[in-house]
């Protein structure tokens, strides 16, 4: 293990490119994530956000460029390696099973066990329920009963459950893939609040979204992606919400549409 404070950055991607055959998914992208900040990755569909997440999460190795964690060069062979370094990714599908109860989902694949009658190694349900309920209570979610299925939770609650699970299993860096994409206004606000709280706890967050209105209030830094290229990284003080909106792919189209509509009125 490298000594911790070698770098003020937890994650650094320097001049990353990724090619799939002849297709260039990312070209020369650099992203640096400071400790305890929320870094928003903004971009329209096809901007390369998913590829970037997969590189961060250890699913794909970059074709070119360097990836450093705590200042140390890394080559992840699998998502498991990234997890071992405390980099947890919450994908859009959340990896939750609707038919299973909250605590069974929380500990899926990492079930706590205890010895029963000295011989059988059993799932320690009581401990699982306790931890799951406490972690969710911290996020303001009450589990109605111990057998409540995840399928009965709202989208926002599920998102929080997935985040709570990642934090419980030792995440220092949370990578959130479009966590507010399928949510209503109120639920989105709740998820944003959870992100803020995670930052207050000292976690670093990469927040991937195409929604400027969700990114701007919560983000400390913004990196804009367009067609596989970075359009720059900006601190919140350096850029306004409208500037961000304009720089995003589609920003121009939206403005044109608005002026078109204005003319009709």
């Amino acid at each position, binding site marked *: 293990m490298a000594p911790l404070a070698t770098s003020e950055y937890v994650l650094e991607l320097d001049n990353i490119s990724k090619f799939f055959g002849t297709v260039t998914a990312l070209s020369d992208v650099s992203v640096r994530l400071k400790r305890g900040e929320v870094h928003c990755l903004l971009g329209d569909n096809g901007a390369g956000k998913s590829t970037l997440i997969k590189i961060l999460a250890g699913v794909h190795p970059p074709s070119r460029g360097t990836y450093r964690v705590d200042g140390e060069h890394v080559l992840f062979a699998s998502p498991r390696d990234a997890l071992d370094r405390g980099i947890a990714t919450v994908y859009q*599908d959340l990896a939750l099973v609707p038919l299973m109860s909250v605590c*069974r989902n929380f500990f899926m694949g990492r079930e706590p066990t205890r010895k029963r009658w000295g011989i059988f190694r059993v799932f320690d349900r009581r401990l699982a329920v306790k931890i799951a309920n406490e972690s969710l209570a911290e996020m303001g979610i009450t589990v109605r009963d111990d057998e409540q299925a995840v399928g009965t939770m709202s989208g926002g609650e599920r998102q929080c459950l997935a985040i709570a699970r990642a934090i419980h299993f030792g995440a220092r860096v949370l990578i959130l893939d479009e966590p507010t994409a399928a949510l209503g206004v109120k639920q989105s606000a709740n998820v944003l609040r959870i992100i803020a709280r995670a930052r207050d706890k000292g976690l670093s967050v990469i927040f991937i979204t195409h929604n400027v209105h969700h990114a701007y209030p919560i983000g400390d830094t913004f990196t804009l992606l367009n067609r596989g290229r970075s359009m720059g990284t900006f601190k919140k003080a350096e850029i306004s919400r409208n500037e961000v909106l304009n720089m995003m792919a589609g920003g121009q189209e939206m403005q044109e549409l608005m002026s078109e509509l204005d003319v009709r009125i």
Partner: protein
Amino acid sequence: MGRPSATAIAGTALVFAIFWVTAGDSGMFALDGVMNWSVVAGYLGILAVGACLLMIGGEFDLSIGSMIGFTGMVAAIPPLHFGWPVWLSMVVALACALVLGFVNGQLVVRTGLPSFIVTLAFLFVLRGLTLAFSIIVADRTIVSGIGDLAEHDPVARFLFWGTFGDGWFTWLASHGWIRALDDGTPLVRGIPKVLIWWAVLAIACSFQLTRTRFGNWIFAVGGDANAAKNVGVPVKRVKVSLFMFTAACAWLFAMLQICDIGSAAADRGLQKEFEAVIAAVIGGSLLTGGYGSVIGACFGALIFGVVQIGITYTNINADWFRVFLGLMLLLAVLFNNQVRRRVTQAR
């Protein structure tokens, strides 16, 4: 009503009530009558336990009926034709079952094809192989005499042959507490071994499913294999081992059956794959996986046995058995769908 087995328990109560009213004085609920239908339930119950775990894990195995005929012949032919000890041929039959279960499972998880199709293919392949090889090796499709050999094989006799607790039943009969024949031997000699196996299997598997890590993985791979994979559950290993376990259940069925009937036949176990699925579904397992219970499947098997045998105690034509069963299945599926909708929709 929160538990998946609730429907099956309610259904069992209803079925018992119906037969109590229509056939209560016919001897169906006397000790020998009880043994009649509980043995049928026990045989199916053993299959249903395996089938329901596999279903909860999100897959089907339609080849278990053929597997019964196949493993029965593999166990019976060598002792009768080549003088092998019975226990050895039974071990070989188990090994065959596990290998075939492994192949089934690997084909399903590697190709990503629906297990329905893959195992349907095996239903035919295995049945055909059994018939063909029986003819080649033994020149017949039914071999008798295996029961006597099993009786004299210490391992087979202990595990599969005859009944359990005979001394106790004789003692009960000698005091006149249970019915005895004229020579003093009890009418029911003991508890058939199939019932012991059923009970042990049901308890062990129910424990495994609800109380252990592996049980949680079964629910996870059946509920959403992709999600399970993403959180580190070894999806392929879980599914393949369930296929192997289901095949082993078919083997157990076959061993008990050849010891009980005394012969093996290549066409044994016809349609058992469907009966096992029916029992699991009546027991509350969803066809799409991720939900169900072993105890429920056992009650499903019990309903099956009670209705199939019970109907012969009434003056209802036995052909109605299938009609009743089909309707029961339909009802169970409708109800299960309702449960799924309730569990998977946000309130």
